[in-house]
């Protein structure tokens, strides 16, 4: 294990934000993805989609300016940007499930080397659990980027050979951005693309259940601010 720090949640979000291109329609899920909107590179405009019926969601509403009829999927009052539209929840998921969004980013519990994805239920957790929009979004994603910690709080790897948690969707993940690495899901398995500053591919592999394919030099993660 490296003596260098892992990335913060904000740094993971900032790295994930580099995946966005001008004009993209993007769904951000709960967890780290929810922070990504703060790090959209300057000079580009991204249209955020919310499962409750917004395309073109803007920043959270300022205190005192909340409209409780304009909330995001986390139920927080937000704003909209020019070009936004409102529609019903079925149309919102027609967009997600039908493959119309450019990029979706979700928080994750486990990603398998075949792209299987688990993010909604920890076996044995108490309470009813809930699915929300994650299955429709993951299943229909044209490009699904999972943003999460590389290992659990207990140190268990979250990039695994096969998921052991209940799945969200089969073979749906394209890229994983963690606090240690950027990893692609390929037909051959996980390919290590970038590592956290000061971490080696070997050190990242030690934190990973599945095999990481390393091709040549693996660059360090560039961190972008606004």
């Amino acid at each position, binding site marked *: 294990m490296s003596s260098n720090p892992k990335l913060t949640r904000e740094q993971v979000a900032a790295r994930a934000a580099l995946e966005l291109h001008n004009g993209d329609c993007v769904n951000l899920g709960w967890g780290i993805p929810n922070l990504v909107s703060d790090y959209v590179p300057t000079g580009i405009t991204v249209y955020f989609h919310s499962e409750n019926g917004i395309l073109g969601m803007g920043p959270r509403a300022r205190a005192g300016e909340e409209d409780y009829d304009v909330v995001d999927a986390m*139920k927080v009052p937000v704003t909209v940007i020019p070009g936004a539209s409102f529609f*019903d*929840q079925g149309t919102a*998921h027609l967009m997600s499930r039908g493959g119309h969004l450019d990029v979706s980013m979700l928080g994750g519990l486990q990603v398998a080397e075949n792209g299987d994805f688990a993010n909604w239920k920890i076996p044995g957790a108490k309470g009813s659990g809930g699915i929300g*929009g994650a299955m429709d979004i993951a299943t229909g994603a044209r490009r699904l980027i999972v943003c999460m910690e590389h290992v659990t709080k207990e140190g268990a790897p979250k990039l695994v050979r096969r998921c052991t948690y209940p799945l969200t969707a089969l073979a749906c993940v394209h890229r994983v951005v963690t606090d240690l690495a950027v990893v692609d899901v390929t037909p051959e398995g996980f390919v290590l693309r970038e590592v956290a500053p000061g971490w080696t591919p070997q050190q990242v592999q030690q934190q990973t259940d599945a095999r990481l394919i390393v091709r040549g030099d693996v660059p360090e993660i560039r961190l972008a601010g606004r």
Partner: protein
Amino acid sequence: MKQKLYDTVDAAVGDVPSGARIFFGGFGGAGFPNNLIQALDRQGASELTAITNNCGSGDGELGILFKHGRIRSVIASFPGPHARHFQELYAAGKISLELVPQGILCERIRAAGAGIYGFYAAVGAGTPVADGREERVVGGRRTVFYEPLAAEFAFIKAWKADELGNLIYRKTARNFNPLMAVAAKTTIVEVEEVVPVGSLDPEAIVTPFVFIHRIVRAKGIHNVVKS
């Protein structure tokens, strides 16, 4: 013109029987028919099946119905950790729950209203949602069969209705409401304002009046909720 206007929310929900299956619109605090829900609680019908995205926050939205033991069975996408009364009943084994992916919930409801007798989607394949469901491989993709989801009543919230029942919604308060409106035997809408027939733009009407059976005016209640 059929008379659809009710004077009070209590009158509008007066005949909902125990055991009824009810859609409840709303998401994230927006577009919940809170006045109808509270009237239903006062009315006392029990053993209800609730079809809804989530199960309330504290006593808010559907919370009050769980608190008072009105609901026996739930079909939902995300009951929610803040649905305290629901979670207590669920932990005690006093309530049954079917979890449905959110977009599939929308499509199953729409199907019931659209004369569609079921459909296949890739959503849920390989997950616990597919347990007990028919699967079919289409073009190499695993898909799961979903049957339509109808209800006897829909409780929905809109912004404005004309006296016929044409509806417009406000921003994200639209959410599940237009979908549920088409799939219930009796759709009851709570609105902020009732306007004369002809005063809504025919191109801007989101729910045409044919889907609406009862209209009642009530000042909207927003429960400010946390996720």
